């Protein structure tokens, strides 16, 4: 099994169709149980009940960054090897990533209001997330604007490469510009205090749930794109006949 086999849409449709129900069921199970478990955790001694928003905020932020990373990899695969399903997967992932970014920004604002006393702060992490959101918007808009699907895939692929460099550059440039208010990484491999197990395990579960949710959405959206492509091909054939 290699990813090159799935450049064949028929093969991709068959495999993804087989995986999809499990992804959907797993996403529903993990997300719901993770969030409910998270909701039932005791209140934090300092943050009170607001700590519970972490079970939405952290998984969404994690996915927002990783979806862009996945788009970068799939765009590269498309640009180098003309793997059509790969380009469509990048296209399908972008709106999901944009929504994840938005969820992270909004939940962060809701948490920030009682905790930091402000909805929005020009903190490096917040700012770079806003910039990431802008990159997602530009990427989606470019896909929508170019008519020829292959040109659109090429142009968005190049944009994704350039955008990745600049998103990363902006991430560190904003550090230079303003010192942060946001706390460091929530989870760390280093042994020590970081986060109590009471919160850690529901968070892991909800992260897994968000990943499966993304997988399910990605498969559904990619399948839709392939079907749309087939439809366009059929229509074109009809026009010629």
């Amino acid at each position: 099994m290699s990813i090159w086999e799935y450049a064949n849409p028929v093969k991709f449709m068959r495999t993804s169709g087989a995986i999809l129900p499990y992804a959907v069921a797993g996403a529903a199970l993990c997300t719901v149980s993770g969030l409910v478990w998270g909701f039932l955790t005791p209140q934090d001694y300092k943050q009170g009940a607001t700590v519970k928003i972490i079970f939405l905020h952290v998984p969404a932020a994690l996915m927002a960054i990783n979806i862009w990373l996945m788009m970068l990899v799939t765009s590269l695969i498309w640009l180098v090897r003309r793997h059509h399903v790969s380009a469509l997967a990048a296209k399908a992932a972008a709106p999901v990533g944009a929504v994840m970014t938005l969820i992270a920004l909004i939940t962060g604002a809701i948490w920030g209001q009682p905790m930091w006393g402000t909805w929005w702060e020009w903190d490096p992490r917040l700012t770079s997330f806003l910039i990431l959101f802008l990159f997602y918007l530009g990427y989606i808009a470019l896909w929508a604007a170019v008519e020829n699907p292959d040109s659109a895939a090429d142009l968005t692929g190049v944009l994704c490469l350039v955008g990745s460099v600049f998103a990363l550059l902006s991430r560190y440039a904003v550090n230079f510009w303003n010192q942060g208010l946001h706390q460091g990484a929530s989870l760390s491999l280093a042994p020590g205090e970081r986060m109590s197990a009471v919160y850690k395990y529901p968070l892991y579960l909800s992260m897994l749930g968000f990943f499966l949710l993304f997988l399910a959405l990605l498969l559904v959206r990619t399948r839709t794109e392939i079907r749309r492509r087939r439809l366009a091909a059929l229509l074109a054939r009809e026009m010629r006949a």
Partner: protein
Amino acid sequence: MKALLLRDLRLATRAGGGFGLALAFFLITCTLVPFGVGPEGGTLARIAPGILWVGALLSCLLSLDRIFALDFEDGSLDLLATAPLPLEGAVAAKACAHWLVTGLPLALAAPVFALLLHLPGPAYPWLVVSLLIGTPALSMLGAFGAAVTVGLRRGGLLMSLLVLPLYVPTLIFGAEAVRRGAAGGDPLPALIFLAGVTLGVLALVPFAAAAALRVNLR
């Protein structure tokens, strides 16, 4: 490459080329801001570095679609693509021409506009230097944005959405250098980062822009 550069410069400076339009836009921005925030000198002096940099950014953006659009319409871009000169070189020449007619005049005229905004005295040299260092990156990134959107009918708005996020690092370092200069601090670290961004952009972005152009000319 030189012939292409001279041709673009001639086209831009003759009637209807829009030379000076960016400068006029910059002037209008600097005139409008005091209406928005009030005429107190202290407030203006505090926000002047940011306003001047954002103004320069927007004026640069205004003339970007001219880089490739006209040549795309009349077909000379196709000739350029088949010319012995690599397309990357053509992109660099065109971005350079764009910089010479917008970025350079902006940087040289900025002190006059800074006067309108009560920029503190020590910041003037840093304003000019930071604009001189930063605007080539703006032109080159703009050429990339123009190359991506050249085939689209209403590419202008989309281009600003694509290009402006790319301007963030340049804006941060450029405005920070001026702000530090105004506060009497040491603007050198910001300038070095700014120069780093510009050099990286000049070295790598022509390839991305040429790739995008080739897609659009296919």
